[in-house]
């Protein structure tokens, strides 16, 4: 296909926004339309943290950026895609047309499959955060179902605001696959240390209880709360792609340059699943992956090589600490701890071939940045050096004579 003269991007989260920015950075001179029901792109990680605590919304770019980069932001919801003609039909019946269409549709918060789920809050959009904001504070009770990233961050934000928080998850220690058991256990222990009650339990029903709600648990007990948040993951928004006949398998299937099964349609962000070497990977569902997949799709749209795949990275901020993980903490091999649980603590996952597969860290700063580069380097690492907090990990990358 010859170089497109126009691009329409459906969804203005980090993937859609990054694709627009990357198209311009690569010199694309054509029209770019960025379509989203929420209008101007904003950043979502603060929705469970600073924004939920009362801070202002964080835009992904200053307003002047859109004019300076000739990116047209269209407020609207796409309801149909005709990939053969590149036509996108909006909810009001208007149509936009482009030579290339990028689906950066993200997802919606997964609903809890129990009776009474309609009483529950979710947290995915700014509107969700606005609905939750006023329900935090001293004298208020919040039950959170799901102690993964968003549930745990909301627990920390709510507890800091004086809310009485109960955090419910059927798994005793969440995030073990993402952070490894050692770092995950430390992170989870912070809840109790900060006055948040954690329950290992399976919710089976949510019922009205006076002015509030009761979360009924499988063991017959109940948790009373004024507000209940379900933080149980996301469902990729693939309806548009499916109806358009694109290949979808629990995510819009793409290659490393965001190409879908239709030559005019591309996809990026939380809604996609990467096919790599004949194998379908898990959806990434992290901010950094969304940014990078948007950039890769921009390269794909222009018929250019996408940047080399990055080592996966995510972070979580809670109770004043910053935790990060890079690479894989589940690869077969062994774990190496550095320091003691607390600020500066790290856990490395060393593969059986002696290379570094992953690292998790608590307030570990540049040591995490070194770990990400060591993983990318793919050379055997010295486990004793990793375990020694006195060894500057940068020296493993840049040996000095």
């Amino acid at each position: 296909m010859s170089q497109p003269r126009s691009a329409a991007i459906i969804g203005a989260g980090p993937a859609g926004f990054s694709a627009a920015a990357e198209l311009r950075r690569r010199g694309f001179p054509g029209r770019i339309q960025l379509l989203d029901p929420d209008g101007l792109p904003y950043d979502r990680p603060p929705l469970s943290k600073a924004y939920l605590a009362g801070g202002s919304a964080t835009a992904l770019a200053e307003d002047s950026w859109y004019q300076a980069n000739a990116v047209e932001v269209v407020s609207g919801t796409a309801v149909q895609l005709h990939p053969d003609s590149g036509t996108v039909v909006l909810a009001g019946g208007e149509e936009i047309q482009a030579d290339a269409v990028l689906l950066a549709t993200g997802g919606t918060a997964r609903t809890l499959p129990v009776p009474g789920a309609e009483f529950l809050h979710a947290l995915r959009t700014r509107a969700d955060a606005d609905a939750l904001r006023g329900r935090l504070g001293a004298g208020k009770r919040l039950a959170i179902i799901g102690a993964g990233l968003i549930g745990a961050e909301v627990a920390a934000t709510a507890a800091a605001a004086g809310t009485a928080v109960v955090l419910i998850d059927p798994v005793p220690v969440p995030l073990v696959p993402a952070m490894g058991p050692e770092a995950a256990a430390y992170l989870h222990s912070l809840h109790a240390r900060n006055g948040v009650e954690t329950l290992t339990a399976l919710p089976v029903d949510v019922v009205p209880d006076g002015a509030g709600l009761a979360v009924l648990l499988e063991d017959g007990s109940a948790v009373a709360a004024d507000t209940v948040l379900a933080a149980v993951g996301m469902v990729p928004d693939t309806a548009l792609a499916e109806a358009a006949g694109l290949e979808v398998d629990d995510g819009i299937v793409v290659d490393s340059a965001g190409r879908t099964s239709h030559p005019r349609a591309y996809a990026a962000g939380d809604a996609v699943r990467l096919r790599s070497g004949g194998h379908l990977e898990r959806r990434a569902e992290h901010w950094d992956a969304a940014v990078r997949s948007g950039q890769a799709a921009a390269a794909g749209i222009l018929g250019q090589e996408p940047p080399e795949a990055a080592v996966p990275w995510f972070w979580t901020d809670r109770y004043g600490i910053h935790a990060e993980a890079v690479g894989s903490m589940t690869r077969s091999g062994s774990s190496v701890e550095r320091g003691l649980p607390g600020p500066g603590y790290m856990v490395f996952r060393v593969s059986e071939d002696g290379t570094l597969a992953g690292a998790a860290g608590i307030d570990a700063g540049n040591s995490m940045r070194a770990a990400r580069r060591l993983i990318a380097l793919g050379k055997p690492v010295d486990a004793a050096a990793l375990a020694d907090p006195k060894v500057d990990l940068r020296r493993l990358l840049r040996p000095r004579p």
Partner: protein
Amino acid sequence: MSEGIRVAAADDIDEGEAITVDSTTTGTADDIAVFHSDDGGFYALNDTCTHEEASLAEGWIEDGEVECPVHSARFCLKTGEALCLPATVNAVAHRVEVVDGDVILYPGVAPAGS
């Protein structure tokens, strides 16, 4: 134009390292980070990341850029330009000169050639 301040001997800041100069010394609103880049040059930016609270002096210095040690926003050391999300606002850059082995910082003065 403000007076230059001697902030260190050039030899005292290794390549790939940075120091923080306190705002009480610089007279600026923010502390200033002075970087010895891996290209050999010395550069200065406001120390606080423009995204959230973090010290850029503690960041990762590579290829004439600094990567924030918290959320990995990157800034150009020469100009302060924000190079990637999550930063959307440029960092303020200040002029630095090396004179007779001393690192001289000019708080509030744009870098030479900018």
